[in-house]
C-alpha cells in the first residue's frame, strides 16, 4: 500500500465574453466581461491523478491553487470530481504574479506538506505561458516531464508517455520528486454531477496564508507592460451584386461562391497529368521527395 500523495496544481481559466474591456489595474479583463471556469487542461491533470489513485499507485489526490477567493468555485469542482483535499494559497486578485513567482508560492506549500509528485496542466486555455511546471520542478529540486499523455508510477519510478509532433510518442522516466505537465488531450475528465458539486460547495475551503513568504520578495522574471484588445480581423464578406441566380447570391452571402467565380483554377484532364500536378504540389511543400534523375 503506497503512502504517496499526488498534488494537482489548479488554476481556473478566465473566459472573456462579449465586448472586451480592461480592468482598472490594466492587468486583466474587466470582471463585467469575464468569468472563471474550470480549465480543461487542469481538469485533465486532475483526471490523470484520480486514475493513479484508482490504480492504487498513489494514496490521495490533493488539489492546490494560488489565487483569490474567486478560485474557490473551481476547487469545489475538484472536490466534487473526487479530490481528497483542496487547498488555496490566498493571493490578492490584483497581484498579477508571473509563472516563477506563482511556482515559488505553490512549491513552498507542497514542500511543507511533503509532496513529491505534482501534476499540472501543460497549458491553460487562457494562454498561460506553460512555465509553471518547469519552474515548480526547479523549486522542488525535482524532475520536469512535459506533454504527458499517460502517467504511471511503477516500483517507485515515474513513467510517462509523451506526445511529440506528428502523432509520435516518447517514453520518459524519472525518480521522485517530479512534476508532470499533462496534455489537454491526455484524458477525458469525468462527469461531475450537479448534486455532488452543490455538496462540495457547502464544505469549508482550506485557505492558507503565504506565511513568511512576502509577495514583493518572490522571484519574477517578466512584467506585463500592456494588455489590450486583440487585433480584430475584417471579415471577408460583402453584399452580393444584383447579378447571378438566387442560389449564387445566397452562396455569396455565406461566403461560398463558386471556385471559378473567384478566379481559382480547377484543373481537369488526363489522370496522369493531374497526378503530376498533385505530385509537384506535394514536393513543393516538402511532403514528398522528388525522384532522383
Amino acid at each position, binding site marked *: 500500500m503506497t503512502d504517496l500523495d499526488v498534488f494537482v496544481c489548479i488554476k481556473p481559466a478566465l473566459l472573456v465574453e462579449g465586448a472586451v474591456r480592461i480592468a482598472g489595474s490594466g492587468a486583466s479583463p474587466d470582471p463585467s466581461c469575464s468569468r472563471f471556469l474550470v480549465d480543461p487542461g487542469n481538469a485533465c491533470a486532475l483526471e490523470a491523478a484520480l486514475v493513479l489513485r484508482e490504480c492504487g499507485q498513489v494514496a490521495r489526490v490533493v488539489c492546490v491553487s494560488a489565487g483569490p477567493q474567486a478560485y474557490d468555485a473551481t476547487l469545489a469542482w475538484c472536490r466534487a470530481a473526487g479530490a481528497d483535499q483542496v487547498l488555496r494559497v490566498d493571493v490578492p486578485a490584483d497581484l498579477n504574479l508571473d509563472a516563477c513567482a506563482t511556482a515559488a508560492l505553490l512549491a513552498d506549500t507542497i514542500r511543507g506538506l511533503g509532496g513529491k509528485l505534482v501534476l499540472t496542466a501543460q497549458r491553460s486555455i487562457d494562454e498561460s505561458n*506553460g512555465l509553471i511546471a518547469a519552474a515548480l520542478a526547479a523549486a522542488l529540486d525535482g524532475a520536469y516531464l512535459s506533454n504527458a499523455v499517460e502517467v504511471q508510477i511503477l516500483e517507485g519510478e515515474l513513467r510517462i508517455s*509523451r506526445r511529440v509532433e506528428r502523432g509520435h510518442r516518447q*517514453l520518459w522516466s524519472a525518480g521522485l520528486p517530479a512534476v508532470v505537465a499533462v496534455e489537454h488531450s491526455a484524458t477525458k475528465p469525468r462527469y461531475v454531477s450537479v448534486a455532488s458539486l452543490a455538496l462540495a460547495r457547502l464544505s469549508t475551503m482550506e485557505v492558507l496564508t503565504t506565511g513568511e513568504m512576502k509577495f514583493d520578495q518572490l522571484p*519574477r522574471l517578466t512584467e506585463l507592460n500592456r494588455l489590450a484588445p486583440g487585433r480584430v480581423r475584417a471579415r471577408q464578406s460583402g453584399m452580393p451584386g444584383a447579378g447571378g441566380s438566387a442560389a449564387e447570391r445566397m452562396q455569396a452571402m455565406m461566403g461560398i461562391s463558386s471556385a471559378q467565380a473567384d478566379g*481559382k483554377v480547377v484543373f481537369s484532364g488526363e489522370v496522369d497529368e493531374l497526378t503530376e500536378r498533385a505530385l509537384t504540389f506535394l514536393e513543393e511543400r516538402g511532403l514528398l521527395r522528388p525522384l532522383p534523375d
Partner: protein
Amino acid sequence: MSHILVLTEHHGGEFAEVSFELLTEARRIGRSQKSDVTAMVLGAGVTGMAAELTGHGIHQVLVADDVRLTHYDPNLWLGTVSAVCKQLEPDLILLPATTTGEDLAARLAVTKKWPLFSRSTKITFKGDQIQAARPVYAGKLQETISSISGTTCLATILPGVIGVRPVDTGGDAPVVAIEVVAEADGRVAVTGFVAADPDNLDLAEADVIVAAGRGLGQVENVSLVKELAALLGGAVGSTRVVVDLGWLGKETQVGQTGATVKPRLYIACGISGATQHTIGMKESSAVIAINTDPSAPIFNLADLSLNCDVAQLLPVLIDQCRKRVEHAP
C-alpha cells in the same frame, strides 16, 4: 544587441517550416538591432541538411550531429544549447513553439533564470529592452511583456504566425560543428520512442489528413484513401455521410459533428464541401480537392483543385508516391 540564436527544428530530413519563420524573424530583428544571427541544428545525420541554411542571410550555422540526438533528449539538448549560450552570450534565443521547443525553452528559462516569452507573435524593442506580444484569453486580448532584468531572453514562436519571407541578403554562412554536451544533473531518462501508427493516428495530431467522401463511389475504394494516408505518414479522415454508410469509424469524422483539424495538408477525396464538413477543416494549411463536379464548393478552399474521378486518380497517385517513398534516403 549583439547576438540572436535560433534553434531550428526538422523532421524526416527536412527543416520544419517554422525554422525558416524563426530565421525570418531573427533577420528582421538582426537588421534593426545590428545583431548577428546564429542558427543551431541538433540531430543525427544533419550536417548535410545544415548547408541549406547557409544562404539565409545569417552569420553562422552551428551543427551538433550525433546519433544520440536522433530523438529529443532534454539532457543532451539542454546541455548542448547551454554550452553554446555560454560561449555566444546571445541576447535573444528564438525557439519554435513545438513540444521540443517549448520543453527546452522552459528548461533553459528555469535553469538560467532567463525570462521566457511563450508563443509570441512579435518581438519588439523599447530602447534596449526586449518586449514580446502574445495573444491571451483565446486571442481576445494581446499582452505585451518584457524582461525585468537585462539578461538573455527566450521566445517561442508559434508555427504559421510569422510566415517565411524571401532572403534578401543571401550570404554564405560557415557551418561549424559543435560537441554534444550532456547536462550533468539530468533527472529525466528517455527510455523509448513509439512511432505513430497511421491506423490509429489522432486526427488532431496528424500533419497530413487524407479524407474520404461519398464521391469515392464504393466502400472498396476506402482502402485507396488509407493507402495514400499511410504513404504520406498521415491519418484518414471522413465526412459524416461516409461514417453513416459505415465505410469508416466515427473517430475519423471531420466537421461540425466530428473533429476540427488544422493539418499541414488536407486531401479531400470525393468530398463536395458542405459547410458542415468544411467548418472542421477550413484552417488546414493546404488543401488538395479531388472531385468530379467542377462547381463543388470544396474547390473554393482548395489550393489545388483536380476535377476528375478520385477512384481513377488515387491508384496512379499512390503508385507514384510509393516510388518516391521507396527512393527516399
